[in-house]
């Protein structure tokens, strides 16, 4: 069966028909060239409205057209360039653009004619189809053209050409075959831009010889075609079951699964090949655009061409007729169509091309590729075109986008591929299929210009970023977010305790805060304590004690006159009367002096012996370390000892570790030793107060002159002749400590007595201190060389000395007071015992009675 191709739409029609079944156009000898040009023009500028009827186009196998893009040997265009040919300005821009590209072949050698509009459009359409960033509202903006050799690696394009163009059976009459042959022939494959009539055998009226600008006629809007009403408004619903549809072997079908293609190839026979050549898949796509349901059922179309991916709710733009008057029939350099003119993207394109050759950076848009290698879709396929900006709308021609599913690539450009649609494509198709994946990989590896990357990036990335709101971070990201430490730490440094023993002290650890950190959690946490019975008893005891503290106790009002108070008054009266009477009416009591045996091994005896060893002007250090309250006792106790020292003619040095000590020393001399008439700094020196207790005393032991440089009255402490040679405490001939505090006595013994070599350490202490210092005297070696304790030892000392003093004067009242005190204690104890016996006896009697 012989079909007649429609010169208008290129679809096969029965030879019996005089008009095309599809477009209604007349079949027969018509000016194909004019139809092609008008078709192309209409496709480019007028057919953006999907409601418009399909323009008749030339049926062409897209595989062959794609093969033409991979032509490894660009024709020597220099030979094609004719002086009279004035390339359009856009092509001049392209040439200028090519100047910037350090292509393997000098771009300067590329004539404007070589920059095929159709090829570039195919490239753009191919690229745009792949990127899927088309918009039906886009102006047909042709992209700048650049040698495809630079875009596609040679290893892909070169070996394909021989196998992609096996068109030996194509009829010589076929103009597309001629176009294909012209493409294969160097210098002739670009003739459609220069001399289409000579190379393609088109009618002479379109020859550039007659019309120098005739090679751009296909760009010239044909008023007739523009004004021609749609010839096929009622486009019939395609027959999806027809082999020509389902088994479309177009280049887009090659994007399908190779296995599918192989199956299709195996199932198809020569009839299929014939029908295939007669099938225009683009028309089917356009027809399918009206019904997405059918497209969904058709798996032969790649997803990115699927009409169903178009948003159904996308508002269809109003048919905007192309500004036909703007495109002049004669495309002067200044009157080029808008899509051929360089726009603002030229710079970006130039930059892109420059970087393309100068750098090896690759741009890989996101492509979802199934494991089978089938190119499925892009991420932004489902993004509405409305999301794109106006500039992006301009960048992509309408026919190059997804919306070209309605219009597809114009037929006029299909011949640029040099592929004969009637020729059987198996060999070439297989060859292309082999390199299909690599082709697209390399295609996407190419660095794209900014305007394209921006469009694709916005189409791909922006929706992704918009999908996630700013605050909708995943949980694991929130968990990884650094947490600023609480400023409580800084506050704790300045925390000051408010109560308790640490009140007022800063920088303490607040126990309350630690407890209150996780009080609830701590309360919920079980205590793994194993308590024994005894522990429970302690707990109960503690609870009882705490409970008793909270209970209010009744305090009985004391009786106005208590027995104890009366007893206290009675004892006080007895003591005062007897003591005062003894003082007033008493006198001296003649006592016998102690024997030598009694003196031996006693403290006062040892002290007496030590003082007896001293002689005139020997320095003696006396420490007045007692409180004024003890002055009555210690003055009487020390009077005889100091008198003895003065009798020996020693040079006395007074010092005190108590602030009141120096004054007491002066008072002691005035009240007890007035008879000796000791003069300050002459017979004695008052060194004053020695601060520091044990530490100060230790330092004084080591270096007395440095610790106390001045005397109590501010005079030179160490200027007296007896003290000139005193450099340490061992230089004193004797040390006498007068104290009423056992701790002070211990300090002197521990700090000084252990350091002294030959200097004796002696003491005059209160009677209450004697039990504590006596072991130091009794120990061996002795840390205490002698001591006098209280009035009793002092009175004995005075008796030994033979010089009665205060101790002797107070001896009678003191003894009487002792007797009264002992008697009171004895009587009190006896009375207490008797009362206890009576109490027990009474209790026993009561118990027996009960």
């Amino acid at each position: 069966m012989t079909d007649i191709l429609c010169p208008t739409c290129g679809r096969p029609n029965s030879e019996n028909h005089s008009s095309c079944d599809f477009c209604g156009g007349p079949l027969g000898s018509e000016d194909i060239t004019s139809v092609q040009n008008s078709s192309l023009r209409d496709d480019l500028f007028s057919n953006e409205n999907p409601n418009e009827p399909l323009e008749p186009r030339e049926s062409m196998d897209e595989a062959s057209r794609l093969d033409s893009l991979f032509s490894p040997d660009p024709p020597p265009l220099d030979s094609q360039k004719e002086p009279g040919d004035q390339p359009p300005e856009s092509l001049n821009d392209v040439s200028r653009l090519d100047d910037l590209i350090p292509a393997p072949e000098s771009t300067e050698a590329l004539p404007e004619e070589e920059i095929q509009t159709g090829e570039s459009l195919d490239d753009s359409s191919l690229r745009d189809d792949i990127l899927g960033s088309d918009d039906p509202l886009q102006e047909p903006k042709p992209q700048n053209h650049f040698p495809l050799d630079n875009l596609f690696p040679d290893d892909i394009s070169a070996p394909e050409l021989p196998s992609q163009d096996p068109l030996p059976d194509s009829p010589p009459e076929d103009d597309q075959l001629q176009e294909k042959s012209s493409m294969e022939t160097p210098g002739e494959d670009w003739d459609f831009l220069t001399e289409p009539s000579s190379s393609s055998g088109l009618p002479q009226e379109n020859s550039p010889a007659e019309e120098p600008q005739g090679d751009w006629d296909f760009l010239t809007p044909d008023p007739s075609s523009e004004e021609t009403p749609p010839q096929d408004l009622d486009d019939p619903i395609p027959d999806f079951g027809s082999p020509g549809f389902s088994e479309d072997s177009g280049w887009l079908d090659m994007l399908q699964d190779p296995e599918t293609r192989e199956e299709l190839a195996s199932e198809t026979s020569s009839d299929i090949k014939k029908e295939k050549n007669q099938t225009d898949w683009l028309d089917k796509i356009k027809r399918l655009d009206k019904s997405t349901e059918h497209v969904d059922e058709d798996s032969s179309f790649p997803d990115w061409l699927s009409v169903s991916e178009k948003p159904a709710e996308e508002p269809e733009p109003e048919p905007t007729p192309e500004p036909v008057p703007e495109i002049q029939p004669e495309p002067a350099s200044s009157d080029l169509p808008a899509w051929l003119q360089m726009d603002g993207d030229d710079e970006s394109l130039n930059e892109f091309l420059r970087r393309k050759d100068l750098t090896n950076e690759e741009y890989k848009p996101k492509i979802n590729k199934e494991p089978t290698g089938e190119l499925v879709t892009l991420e932004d396929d489902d993004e509405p075109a409305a999301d794109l900006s106006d500039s992006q709308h301009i960048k992509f021609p309408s026919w190059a986008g997804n919306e070209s599913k309605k219009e597809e690539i114009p037929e006029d450009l299909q011949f640029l591929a040099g592929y004969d649609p009637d020729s059987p494509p198996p060999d070439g198709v297989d060859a292309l299929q082999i390199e299909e994946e690599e082709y697209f990989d390399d295609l996407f590896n190419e660095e794209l210009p900014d305007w394209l990357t921006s469009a694709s990036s916005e189409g791909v990335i922006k929706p992704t970023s918009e999908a996630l709101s700013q605050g909708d971070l995943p949980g694991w990201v929130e968990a990884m977010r650094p947490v600023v430490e609480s400023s409580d730490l800084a506050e704790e440094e300045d925390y000051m305790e408010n109560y308790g023993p640490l009140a007022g002290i800063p920088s303490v650890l607040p126990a309350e805060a630690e407890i209150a950190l996780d009080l609830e959690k701590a309360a919920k946490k079980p205590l793994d304590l194993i308590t024994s019975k005894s522990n429970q008893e302690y707990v109960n005891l503690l609870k009882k004690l705490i409970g008793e503290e909270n209970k209010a106790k009744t305090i009985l009002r004391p009786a106005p006159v208590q027995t104890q108070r009366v007893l206290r008054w009675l004892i006080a009266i007895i003591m005062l009367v007897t003591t005062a009477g003894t003082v007033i009416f008493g006198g001296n009591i003649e006592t016998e002096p102690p024997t030598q045996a009694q003196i031996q091994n006693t403290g006062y005896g040892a002290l007496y012996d030590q003082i007896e060893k001293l002689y005139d002007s020997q320095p003696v250090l006396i420490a007045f370390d007692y409180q004024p309250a003890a002055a009555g006792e210690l003055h009487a106790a020390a009077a005889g000892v100091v008198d003895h020292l003065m009798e020996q003619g020693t040079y006395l040095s007074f010092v005190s570790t108590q602030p009141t000590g120096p004054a007491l020393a002066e008072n002691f001399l005035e009240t007890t030793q007035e008879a000796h008439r000791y003069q300050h700094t002459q017979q004695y020196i008052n060194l004053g107060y020695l601060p520091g207790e044990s530490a100060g005393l230790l330092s004084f032991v080591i270096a007395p002159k440095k610790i106390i440089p001045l005397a109590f009255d501010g005079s030179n402490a160490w200027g007296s002749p007896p003290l000139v040679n005193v450099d340490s405490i061992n230089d004193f001939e004797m040390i006498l400590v007068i104290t009423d505090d056992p701790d002070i006595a211990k300090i002197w013994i521990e700090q000084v007595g252990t350091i002294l070599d030959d200097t004796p350490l002696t003491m005059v202490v209160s009677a209450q201190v004697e039990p504590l210092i006596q072991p130091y005297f009794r120990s061996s070696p002795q840390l205490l060389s002698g001591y006098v304790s209280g009035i009793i030892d002092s009175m004995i000392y005075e008796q030994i000395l033979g010089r009665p003093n205060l101790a002797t004067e107070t001896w009678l009242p003191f003894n009487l007071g002792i007797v009264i005190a002992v008697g009171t204690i004895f009587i009190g104890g006896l009375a207490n015992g008797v009362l206890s016996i009576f109490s027990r006896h009474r209790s026993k009697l009561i118990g027996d009675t009960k």
Partner: protein
Amino acid sequence: MNMGNLLDFIGLALGFLFTILIFSYLLGDNPFFRLAIHIFIGVSAAYVAIITINNVLIPRMIIPLIQGSQGERLLSILLFIPSLFLFLKVTPLRKAGNWSVAILVGIGAAAAIGGTITGTLFPQILGTINSVDPSAYSISSSRWDQAINGIIIVLGTITTLIYFHFGTRDNPGHPNERQPFIENISKIGKIFLAITFGALYAGVLLSSLAALVERLSFLWEFLNSIGFQLFTSF
């Protein structure tokens, strides 16, 4: 009456007055006693402050800082900085005061511990041992007396130390009590402690009695002086 005698008389009169005020405590707590106590405390504090300034700060810090050598000045500065602990709670330099307090406490504790070990602990242990060592007995007294004294010292020391041993062994089902052996020995130690505290109390009593006699003597002397003056005035 010259000025010296007048001052002595005023001093004696004040002494007599405050002695009577203190004695008034025999009748119980009264305002006169509290007045005397407050005066004594105030006078004592003022006197201590004056002594500290005149006898410590001025001669040991100020004068060396002004008139001393370079080393004395540096030492005075170093002494002045630790003294800032006086302003511990009112100045930001309270931490410097902490340093001074730490130095004082640390040095004092170190000196006290060293002196206690070398001056009290070891000598007491050695004295206790020597008390039962006949070779260490002196020839001036009876050896039997020294031996008995030594035994008493050793027994008192051991039993007193055992008395302060409060450790018990955990015996489930039984109250935590000390071992019977320890308990019995501790009773002996308790006797020694009672005797020691009795001796201390006797010493306090003797000291108080001596002070009482001295105060009564003072009162009588003052009265005699007043009566003498009054007697001589007539």
